[in-house]
């Protein structure tokens, strides 16, 4: 199997979709000829033509709305929002329209659109190229929210998302596009070529949404996280010598409650982690659900490891990012609590 980084894997997914389904169309700001500012759609316009992969005007509301209209006529749009920080002009179309079309029309119209967007921090992008706005979207009934953490999943999940029947907000952790990240900013960059999940089949396959994966088995505590922090968590557990069980959630809406509950019932201790601010973050949902379902198994309070309740700073990015040191502290806190 070829080694691919996450961008190549996403590119390969879209290649497969364009090839297999004539209804697939791809558009976004700079997504056509240039192939996107990160290169996820590179070469696809050349291969499939201007009417299948094209540039959109700088209007995220228009991009979302155009996708809804196209999907209503049976196309399968994959829209790119250049950075998750710029998705907000599209918010109304996603919340009020895309998510509810099936419901309010009693199933007469649907909008199976995929909205892809580079997400999260760690690239010194400042407050407008670093956000993790997933919680805004998990709060909307009617859209699925997915966050892959490696090339293999990125490809399989994107194919599953586009072949599904519901709208999917597909957030891509841009910090790990080119290699996994252990949460230590100055460490040398690692490559996907050395990671088992960097091996990606060329053809069609799906990684179904809604299913989490235990990426590291352990007994001492459970870590529930997604995206970039999956790698930070694995490295922190190894570095600290803590026998943590680490769950890569992969899909946030709907999330895989069974995998979480089984693990927490086993370990009795849990850290939920994300880069987004703490208050009303997705960790709050996880913590609430875990205490409802595992209350009598818990031996320590659920620990929320999150970004701060501030905009994402630029110069002090690493004081905001829940990196290795903070992760180790979180693991120690939950495992040592008596």
């Amino acid at each position: 199997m070829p080694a691919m980084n996450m961008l190549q894997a996403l590119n390969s997914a879209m290649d497969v979709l364009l090839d297999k389904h004539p209804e697939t169309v791809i558009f976004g700001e700079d997504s056509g000829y240039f192939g996107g500012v990160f290169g996820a759609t590179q070469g696809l316009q050349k291969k499939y033509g201007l009417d299948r992969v094209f540039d959109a005007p700088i209007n995220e509301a228009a991009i979302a709305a155009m996708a809804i209209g196209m999907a209503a006529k049976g196309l399968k749009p994959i829209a790119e929002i250049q950075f998750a920080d710029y998705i907000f002009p599209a918010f109304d179309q996603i919340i009020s329209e895309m998510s509810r079309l099936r419901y309010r029309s009693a199933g007469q119209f649907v909008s199976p659109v995929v909205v892809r967007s580079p997400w999260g921090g760690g690239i010194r992008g400042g407050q407008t190229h670093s956000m993790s706005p997933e919680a805004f979207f998990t709060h909307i009934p009617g859209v699925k929210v997915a966050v892959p953490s490696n090339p293999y999943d990125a490809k399989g999940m994107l194919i599953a998302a586009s072949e599904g029947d519901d709208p999917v907000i597909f957030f891509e952790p841009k910090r790990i596009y080119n290699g996994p990240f252990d949460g230590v900013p100055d460490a040398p960059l690692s490559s996907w070529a050395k990671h088992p999940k960097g091996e990606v089949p060329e053809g069609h396959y799906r990684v179904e949404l809604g299913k989490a994966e235990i990426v590291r088995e352990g007994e001492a505590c459970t870590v529930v996280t997604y995206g970039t922090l999956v790698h930070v968590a694995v490295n922190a557990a190894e570095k600290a010598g803590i026998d943590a069980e680490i769950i890569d959630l992969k899909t946030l809406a709907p999330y895989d409650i069974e995998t979480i509950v089984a693990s927490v019932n086993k370990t009795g201790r849990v850290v939920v982690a994300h880069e987004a601010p703490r208050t009303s973050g997705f960790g709050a949902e996880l913590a609430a659900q875990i205490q409802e379902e595992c209350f009598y198994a818990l031996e320590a309070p659920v620990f929320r490891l999150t970004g701060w309740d501030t905009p994402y700073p630029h110069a002090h990015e690493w004081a905001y990012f829940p990196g290795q040191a903070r992760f180790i502290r979180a693991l120690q806190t939950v495992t040592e609590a008596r």
Partner: protein
Amino acid sequence: MSNGQSRFHVPAPPFRPGDAPDFSHLDLQKAGEAKRPDPLTAPAKMTDLAMGLIGVLDHNHQAVGEWDPRLSPEVLREGLSHMVLTRIYDARMLKLQRQGKMSFYMKSLGEEAVAVAAAMALEKSDMVFPSYRQQGILFARGRNIVDMMCHCISNSRDNLKGRQLPVHYTWAEGNFFSISGNLGTQFPQAVGYAMACAYKGEDTIAASWIGDGTTAAPDFHAAMTLASTYRAPVILNVVNNQWAISTYEGIAKGDSPTFASKGLGYGLASLRVDGNDFLAVYAATKWAADRARKGGGATFIELFTYRADAHSTSDDPSRYRPKNEFEVWPLGDPIERLKNHLIGFGEWDEERHEKLEEQMTALVVKSYKEAESHGTLHDGPLSPTHTIFEDVYATEDWRLRRQRQDLGV
């Protein structure tokens, strides 16, 4: 498919890498040809100004026609000097970014006149709401260069405490609003600000700038509607540098004949101006400011120019457009044109120009040394870490207090 052809239409630029660019399809009105109506003229009576091109400097570098602002040689030399400084500053900062001194940079190469001439035509008390490509305004308004650099290298003296990407300046003292990374948001805000000036009975006006690509954004249409409805004392500028990262102007413009013509449907006074002609930009801005101050309402201005370098330090334009477009495009280089104009009537010469460049280079080099003495992004010192918790609210609440303590700062 009545004629057997697909009606699914996606436009594409005429030239891509490897093509020989040719701008002969542009039927540009000649300098001096556009009429200059009284600034209080009704928009419907001057729609031609949105279709033509207001220009003053002709191809012999002479100032011609009704729009000539008749500026003194001193003012022209000042404008030239600000533009030269802008260009030298940009070049230096790009180099320093390549050396890892800052995270990111954006130049305004080839568009210096747009910012500098407009800033000089406005009053310093007028509020500006720029995008990230009008750094020329800061030079024209006399901002301290060391302060600008301290922001770009995010050091301990960055007036934005390291919170913003480089070039996203804020300078309240100089009536320069906080630059947003989210495109277009400043456009309708400028209208609101201008309305507040009118509400308070002040003479002040507001001006804002967005790029050609950003005219597609929802906030563009919000601003145009507000400006027209409330006849706000505002100048809404579109800097048409023909590219939005890799996307050519046609993706935002559609089949509109010009960007300026988009103002006509809103009932706004709409001008299309040669953005590389210092005198034309100055004159058009003065006219629009006059109109706003006298109660005539808003003006929408397209400044036709060309983005001569990359969008930012994050892209390589040779991947999406011909390398020599800037050289062959007809409106030239704003600095060369003003320089030649001054030389043409004996108020400037090559030797003085070289000297000016040397002076500006020395100023930039010296300023950077001083800026660096206050730290750099990589080696510090930065603004103290606890400052990341400041200014979220007027006062820190328990959540931020706990989080700050948790971080140990």
